[in-house]
């Protein structure tokens, strides 16, 4: 027996928590970079995978944009039924410019107190004219300017909140508003709103189902790519485990692979969507000219884009995790 004391140092590093955190962060950074670099070792295979993912993510995104645009073109708002209360025309031009507008504002505030009202907006006669100019296009400005006085009345736009009894609420509300002395008439199209609502709801449900299915597709495509990657790096995983790698450590590069695939696929999908909307704007121009009208294209909001990006990266993580948790722990040295 040997009496010399062991000279071996600690086999796990004795680091402060700050250093441990730094080591952990550095190791994650390294894994993230290595996983990303590995993607481009087989550029063609990666590109095919990414294109598949991009298409799967772009389809529901474009459908979402379609619903959003068509809704906006037909002035359908998901927030509720729109009602317009036209006010009596002012008796003189002076009145139209000054007190009338402040009275209208005050009236709008009173209307806002009525039950069932979700939102009000006072549109002065001047604003109404400006809006008409925008909708009618540049050609109309001369005609409008040639008018002796503004023919449009001021109005209050009322949004009636969604509810189970929308029809009765709307009718009751319309009667109440019409009874106000300042109001000339109230217009709304309940039937049209309900039809539009039904169609939009249907398309949204279809899109939800498509998103779920395509999301599952994203998870499966990424899972399969990760599975192939694990198989091709079997030796490396086994050696790492023999020198003391935990399952969590062995999983890490593949989780990053999944996240990169999801995130890159989403980025490509967003570029595709943007390109489609740009092309749409371009091809809409002759249509706008022919109808001498302005059609505003609704683009993807930054928030929605961020949600799509993060959701795809998360799906990538999930797809990778499902495969890893199964395959990596099964892979034990023999």
């Amino acid at each position: 027996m040997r009496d010399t004391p062991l000279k071996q140092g600690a086999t796990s590093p004795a680091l402060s928590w700050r250093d441990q955190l730094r080591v952990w962060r550095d190791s994650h950074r390294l894994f993230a970079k290595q996983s990303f670099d590995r993607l481009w070792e087989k550029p063609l295979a990666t590109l095919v995978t990414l294109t598949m993912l991009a298409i799967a993510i772009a389809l529901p995104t474009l459908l979402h944009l379609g619903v959003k645009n068509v809704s906006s073109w037909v002035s359908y708002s998901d927030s509720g039924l729109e009602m317009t209360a036209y006010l009596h025309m002012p008796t003189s031009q002076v009145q139209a410019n000054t007190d009338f507008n402040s009275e209208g504002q005050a009236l709008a505030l009173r209307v806002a107190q009525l039950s069932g009202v979700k939102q009000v907006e006072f549109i002065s006669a001047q604003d109404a004219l400006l809006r008409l100019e925008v909708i009618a296009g540049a050609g109309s400005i001369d005609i409008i300017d040639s008018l002796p006085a503004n023919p449009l009345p001021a109005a209050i736009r009322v949004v009636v909140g969604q509810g189970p009894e929308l029809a009765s609420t709307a009718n009751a509300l319309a009667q109440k508003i019409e009874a106000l002395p300042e109001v000339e008439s109230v217009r709304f199209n309940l039937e049209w709103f309900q039809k539009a609502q039904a169609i939009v709801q249907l398309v949204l449900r279809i899109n939800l189902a498509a998103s779920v299915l395509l999301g599952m597709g994203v998870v499966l495509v990424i899972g399969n790519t990760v599975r192939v990657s694990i198989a091709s790096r079997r030796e490396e995983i086994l050696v790492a485990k023999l020198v003391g790698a935990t399952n969590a450590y062995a999983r890490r590069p593949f989780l990053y692979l999944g996240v990169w695939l999801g995130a890159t696929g989403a980025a490509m999908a967003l570029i595709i969507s943007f390109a489609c909307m740009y092309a749409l704007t371009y091809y809409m121009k002759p249509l706008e000219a022919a109808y001498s009208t302005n059609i505003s294209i609704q683009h993807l909001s930054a928030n929605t884009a961020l949600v799509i990006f993060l959701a795809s990266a998360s799906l990538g993580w999930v797809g990778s995790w499902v495969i890893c948790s199964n395959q990596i722990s099964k892979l034990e040295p023999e």
Partner: protein
Amino acid sequence: MIEFKSVSKVYRGQRALADLSFLLDRGEMAFLTGHSGAGKSTLLKLIMLIERPSAGEVLIDGKTLTKVRGSNIARLRRNIGFVYQSHHLLSDRNVFENVALPLMVAGFHHRDIARRVRAALDKVGLLSKEKQSPATLSGGEQQRVGIARAVVNKPPILLADEPTGNLDPQLSAEIMQLLHDFNNAGVTLLIATHDLALIAKMPHRSLILRQGQLIGGTHLSDNVASERAAPVDLSGHL
């Protein structure tokens, strides 16, 4: 340091190890011999927790391995260096990266990693080849990279499975001397080998396996006896 208590291992009805008991002291160096199929690799795998005993228990540092599970298996392996006959180096990484693997896995800081890897490579005389791919090295050099990787974490225990199996006698002697040096530095060493000529030259205990049973060198007190008897015994069994 390493203790086997009545350990048996059965593979699909076939007995690989039968009622094996021995104790390897801290800082001791011993050989594990026997012809192929005698259970040498199985015994080493039980220490690494690559395999589990069918009966009995294995203890390291007085602690039983029976209940070690999950990530604790990984932690146990960080305390045991392992040198393979086929060295298991990763061909897509250079020498430095191969040797650094155990440290990265254990969560060392990259500054410490560089320092320790160079120290380990220096010890095996390959410091100048850290940037090379293992494939460009000779068999002896590859084995030394494998040893550097096994000791880079300064594990208290070093196991070797036929470390000289693919090497000519001169290189084998060099590798054995290298392992012996680590033992001199206090590492507990168990080397599975059937290179009897090499064993005969070194003054260490031999655990002799035959059909899964130990037939010599089970206790330290056997040391002298087995060393004297070893050449005779072995020639009879192999």
